[in-house]
């Protein structure tokens, strides 16, 4: 059984908390999908407005586990400091490590990611690296102490789905014992189901739910798709073939010609 640093999840949909029309709609989406883990972040707090305090109360009320991220960090130093602050604020060793290397694609800087993962692992963090499907980087991240990998499906917020099926399939095949999460780029429940059918352990998404016309209904749809994809993978799907094969038995067919 592949777990997330020892944590087993019944619901393999992980949901981001940003960009919802309102905090109430975010709460509705989390409940509708029955998610157990949400991603959160950190920003400057104004002593007057205290927006962060209100958000934290909402998350506590939802009773979910949090996975803090280092979103927006472009250097190892920034990401490590953000992780350290997140551990204190959220009281968890979990960190979704993002080191952004390129602004148009928000592609991870894999070199910085490996460096940051090694530093944080040595400090006792449990690192969930936001990576690509690159096999060499995956190996280096595991060497650095990561026990979970989170390759992108497509660029963050693009909704393009699984851009590199071959890459995701080979990552799964190369690291059969490592928990793998498709993180980012998912636009539709069918994309999430496809990721699970490849044998991925979970799917993490945000925009596809937050920007839907009805986020709660979309969150529920994603939860069903993830569960269906997981069940299908476990049921050992048939191999595709190029030629037709009749599904109705031919034997005993009446001669009517």
């Amino acid at each position, binding site marked *: 059984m592949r777990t997330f640093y020892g944590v087993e999840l019944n619901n393999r949909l992980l949901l*981001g*908390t*940003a*960009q*919802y029309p309102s905090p109430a709609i*975010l709460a509705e989406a989390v409940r509708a999908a029955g998610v157990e883990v949400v*991603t*959160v*972040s*950190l*920003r*400057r*707090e*104004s*002593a*007057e407005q*205290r*927006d*962060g*305090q209100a*958000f*934290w109360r909402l*998350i506590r009320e939802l009773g979910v586990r949090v996975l*803090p*991220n280092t*979103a927006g960090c472009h250097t190892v*130093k*920034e990401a490590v*400091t953000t992780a*350290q*602050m*997140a551990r*204190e*604020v*959220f009281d968890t060793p979990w960190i979704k490590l993002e080191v952004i290397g390129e602004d148009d694609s928000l592609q991870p800087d894999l070199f910085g990611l490996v460096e940051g993962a090694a530093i944080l692992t040595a400090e006792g963090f449990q690192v969930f690296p936001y990576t690509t499907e690159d096999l060499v980087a995956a190996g280096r991240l595991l060497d650095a102490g990561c026990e979970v990998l989170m390759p992108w499906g497509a660029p*963050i*917020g693009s909704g393009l789905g699984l851009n590199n099926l071959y890459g995701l399939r080979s990552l799964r095949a190369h690291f059969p014992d490592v928990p793998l999460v498709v993180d*980012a780029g998912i636009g539709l429940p069918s994309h999430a189901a496809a990721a699970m059918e490849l044998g991925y352990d979970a799917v993490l998404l*945000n*925009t596809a739910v937050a920007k839907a016309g009805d986020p709660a209904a979309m969150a529920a749809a994603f939860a069903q798709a993830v569960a269906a994809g997981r069940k299908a993978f476990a049921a050992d799907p048939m191999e595709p073939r190029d030629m037709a094969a009749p599904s109705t038995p031919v034997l005993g067919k009446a001669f009517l010609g």
Partner: protein
Amino acid sequence: MRIVLNGKAREVREARLDALLEELGYAGAKVATAVNGDFIARNLRERTRLNDGDRVEVIAPMQGG
């Protein structure tokens, strides 16, 4: 003393980080702090003395993906 708080220059009285947070109105808030880019853990705030021109970051939970 003049510091840079969350990117904005600001005149403050207190030079100890824990006292500064009180002065600024963060008492009781769930926040983490960094000074000049380095994380300062909660239990080190009272031992951390600020100097003129220091950059202080006070951050809190926020929505994220």
